[in-house]
């Protein structure tokens, strides 16, 4: 699949889901809030890395196929675990180009449980401690 700039690429997700209150708050109690049968890949520019418990949050913006900026967010594991994997609060900075793959939240398709994250230098960042 080709990705052009900030073009949004969606794999195996129905496009017409509505924005509702996110169920992401439930995520640290299990994966039930996310559709683990679906995987979405999105390319965009980081707006914020929130390095806090219980799960680190990544916020980014992506231009959709109509050229309109969309806000996306994703969830990683706990900051302590990411620190042990080599991260810190500055690992992703606003403006960094990232490619994120993850399972969409059942209530908010623009919220992902991130399973893979390619950083601004083109390498896949470690998402788990050993």
């Amino acid at each position, binding site marked *: 699949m080709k990705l052009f700039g900030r073009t949004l690429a969606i794999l195996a997700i129905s496009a017409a889901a509505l924005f509702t209150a996110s*169920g*992401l708050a439930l995520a640290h109690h299990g*994966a039930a*809030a996310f559709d683990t049968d679906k995987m979405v890949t999105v390319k965009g520019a980081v707006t914020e890395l*929130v390095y806090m*418990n219980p799960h680190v949050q990544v916020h980014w913006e992506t231009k959709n196929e109509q050229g309109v900026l969309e806000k996306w967010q994703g969830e990683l594991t706990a900051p*302590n675990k990411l620190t042990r994997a080599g991260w810190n609060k500055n690992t992703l900075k606003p403006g960094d180009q990232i490619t994120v793959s993850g399972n969409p939240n059942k209530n908010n398709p623009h919220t992902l449980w991130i399973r893979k994250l390619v950083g601004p230098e083109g390498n896949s960042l*470690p998402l788990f401690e050993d």
Partner: protein
Amino acid sequence: MARTLTLATAVTWLVWATSISAQAPASSAASAAAAAPKRDLTGVWMIRNPAGMRGYAGATFTKEEPEMTPWAIAKYKEAKNTNGGQYDLETTNDPVVTKCYPPGTPRVYFHPYPFEFIQTPKYVFMIYEYDHVIRRIYTDGRPLPPDPDLTWMGTSIGRWENDTTFVVDTVGFNEKTWIDRLGHPHSTEMHVTERFRRTDRDHLQIDFIITDPKALVKPWTSTFYAELRPQWELGEISCSGDYLEFKAFEK
């Protein structure tokens, strides 16, 4: 990242070392493991159970249900845990999730974070990364209190059964905690025995024996496994500060 490089270097070294040792007739895989130091559990450990346990060990001690008394069965039916996806943050009655109650012993092992042993002449500290939980395990020879005050993590004494096995007995629990993440209940009469057996420098076997005449028909036993993490440091996790405010992410 630096850590990845270190890991890659270690793996490379391990492959090299293994190939060398394979050529030496006196060597075996078992002798490659460094011996456990004597009477010392100091360090950071992480539960790493074998793959065969992963279906249940993140939430409970055994694949099979423990044998419970009618009192415990009735209480267990009231538990609305968050493991199966049936109950969420709004509907669960998990005391840790809803109120940030201390997890209690032994439920603390079901939080997927490391713990650290710190040994002093009179007691051993166990520090769990999850929510700064600390247990003080007396090793000064005192007996278990016959009528202990009731606390979240209990009152603990420990003794070295041999040079690599540290046995901890804990009593004196309030009834506000669950035994595990599924919500199995216990009473104030619960007695938890943890037998920490350091099988080599890097591996710890934890045998649990949970007795509770009011809740369990017979002792509930299980064995968990932990690995030493020499490069790790415990970080900060605050349930009341971090978890209860996580809804902010919904905005």
